């Protein structure tokens, strides 16, 4: 081990600190109450969907959907009572509340609905949503702050090559989809720009903490930055010379806070998955030179970003291009045709 690596091993790296404490008992009681509520409502929805439809003023043609929501409630209830992760159960209730509210909103527009009752039901759901949010954010924030994600991949290239590609931080946006740009400002300093919520851009300056060629790079944002961010990437020669094992740890405090991060998590955009997808693209860029695009994932790989597996039309291709989702160096026939005025 080099002297540099030793000094790195001696420092405590923020992303690798041990975390969670236990939630307060008040929060636990609230969560349990919500769990029983979930199961009670779920059973009623499952067994008496027509009565539920009547109480909430929606058309009784939706019994199948109400039964499905009943199953969802019961699942959330069971999750809350599972000792290992009550927070996920409560967060799934928050997502369920959002679904209920969307359905009620749709019912409000329907001519067959009893508007007074729908409004009453909506008010009730809103009240429960508030409780859910309180319980969920308390369960999630206790004992830790920010988001920590780790992921690894194996790349069919030598550690030195994989390291050099990563060390050139300006390459990172080629595979990290939420990054817009990274500008190397010399002497280990860099300026990062990432996509923030609602089309905004978040920028910060970072500095390299440890840098051992072919082995490890760690960095963190400078004191006083808008975003508190730290990252570490390690490169290990895979057994049998089968390339390089890449291990990444990142930690950051997201602009939308822990609530935004956890809601995103429920819809499949969780940081660890994002990092996994980033690493998959990293591997693609190193092994085949560009990011592989399929019809369904043109606008992203998230569950709700999937489009049908059919060729995209011009509008969608333009959208993908504006999101920089098309491989940047590709002279696609679509781009060429448009440049030559054939589209």
């Amino acid at each position, binding site marked *: 081990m080099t002297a540099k690596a030793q000094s790195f091993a001696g420092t405590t790296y923020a992303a690798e600190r041990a975390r969670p404490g236990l939630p307060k008992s008040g929060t636990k009681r609230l969560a349990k109450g919500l769990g029983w509520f979930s199961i009670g409502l779920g059973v009623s929805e499952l067994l008496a969907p027509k009565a539920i439809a009547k109480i909430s003023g929606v058309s009784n043609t939706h019994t199948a959907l109400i039964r499905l929501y009943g199953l969802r409630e019961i699942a959330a209830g069971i999750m809350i009572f599972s000792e290992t992760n009550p927070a996920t159960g409560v967060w799934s209730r928050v997502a369920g509340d959002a679904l209920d509210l969307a359905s009620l909103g749709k019912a409000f527009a329907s001519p067959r609905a009893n508007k007074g009752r729908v409004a009453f039901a909506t008010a009730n759901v809103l009240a429960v949503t508030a409780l859910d949010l309180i319980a969920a954010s308390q369960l999630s924030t206790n004992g830790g702050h920010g988001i920590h994600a780790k992921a690894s991949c194996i790349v069919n290239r030598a550690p030195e090559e994989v390291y050099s590609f990563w060390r050139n931080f300006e390459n990172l946006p080629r595979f990290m989809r939420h990054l817009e740009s990274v500008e190397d400002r010399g002497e280990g300093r860099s300026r990062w720009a990432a996509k923030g919520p609602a089309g905004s851009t978040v920028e910060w300056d970072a500095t390299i903490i440890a840098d051992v060629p072919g082995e490890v790079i760690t960095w963190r944002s400078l004191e006083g930055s808008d975003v508190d961010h730290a990252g570490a990437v390690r490169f290990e020669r895979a057994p049998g010379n089968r390339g390089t094992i890449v291990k990444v740890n990142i930690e950051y405090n997201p602009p939308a806070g822990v609530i935004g991060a956890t809601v995103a998590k429920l819809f499949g955009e969780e940081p660890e998955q994002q990092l996994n997808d980033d690493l*998959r693209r990293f591997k693609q860029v190193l092994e085949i030179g560009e990011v592989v695009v399929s019809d*369904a994932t043109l606008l992203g790989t998230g569950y709700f970003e999937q489009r049908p597996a059919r060729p995209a039309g011009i509008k969608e291709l333009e959208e993908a291009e504006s999101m920089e989702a098309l491989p940047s160096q590709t002279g696609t026939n679509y781009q060429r045709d448009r440049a030559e005025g054939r589209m």
Partner: protein
Amino acid sequence: MRATCWYGKTTVNVDDVPEPQILNQRDAIVKITSTAICGSDLHMYDGVIPTMKRGDVLGHEFMGEVVEVGREVTNLRIGDRVVVPFPIACGNCFFCQSQMYSLCENSNPNAWLAEKMFGHSPAGIFGYSHLTGGFAGGQAEYARVPFADVGPIKVPDHLADEQVLFLSDIFPTGYMGAEMCDIKPGDTIAIWGCGPVGQFSIRSAFLLGAERVIAIDEVPERLQMAQEGGAETINYAEQNVYETLMEMTGGRGPDACIDDVGMEAHAPALIFGYDRLKQAMMLETDRPHALREAIMCCRNGGTVSVIGVYGGFADKIPLGSLMNRSITIRSGQAHVQRYMRPLLELIENGDIDPSFVITHIMSLDDAPKGYEMFKNKEDGCIKVVLKPGTNGNAETVH
């Protein structure tokens, strides 16, 4: 262009969709001249494959003419006549370099979805759910073919489409099913399922040196086609499979068994009802009747080769039988790229003419009818080939 699109359980329509574009530098665009409906397409048609989305273009068995190539495709030229393998494979990763192309690490952008279901992701596949990448399929007039410098194989003009089309899937798949049996001269091979892949397993088993092939199905025309390929047959609707096989092999059992059926097995009433009920209650996704029977029938120390498609989870697999009797299980989606060239040589030498399996040739616009006929095995239907850009009614070949 016209394309066969999935809209839900037993609903496919031929719709107008945008023409594909080159999106990656190693893509090619192929103008399709022949495409086929695969038995595994029926799993999506039946709605048992998750992660389908309304409007998905189906089809992973296709061939045609190269009409456009990306900047880095140097081995193909516009006008080349090619057959396209169903797994999409990069050629650069660990698995491609080990010739395990259907396990390519780089070709499935939805690998995270597959990892949730399977633990690890297989390669991307054309027109085969979002779990395997969400690539538009080839039951269409045109298809975008990624990694065109690795997959497609050029075919000589003197061979008809019908003779080479099945290099895309069912011939290599049936062949790999037989190859995984590690056949020695004198071996007896039992094959569950006489659909198109089963038919190729039968013929491949003989090509690989089997002395005796016993094929199991219940559809008379499929059993007849199996007999034409040299197999002895068992009709499971009339005979007890285990007892018949034991009688035929002196109680020892076949040296190797091939499951050419997969997740939607039909079986005698009681066990079929059990699996169907569990499937309906979402307690299992697959009905593994053929696999159970293949394990129980296989001789001690023999091999069970699983090439029929499974999608999720199943139960009552006889692990005790498997373990105590030293059974080897081998399986996989076919590594088609590995087999295309040697199998093309067999076709060129006249050792096999894969067109024997075709019963119906239709225009692409008749795809919905083709799916229905194939699923219900109407009019002796065993294999449907679709021709884009032609009109007219279904043509029965056999």
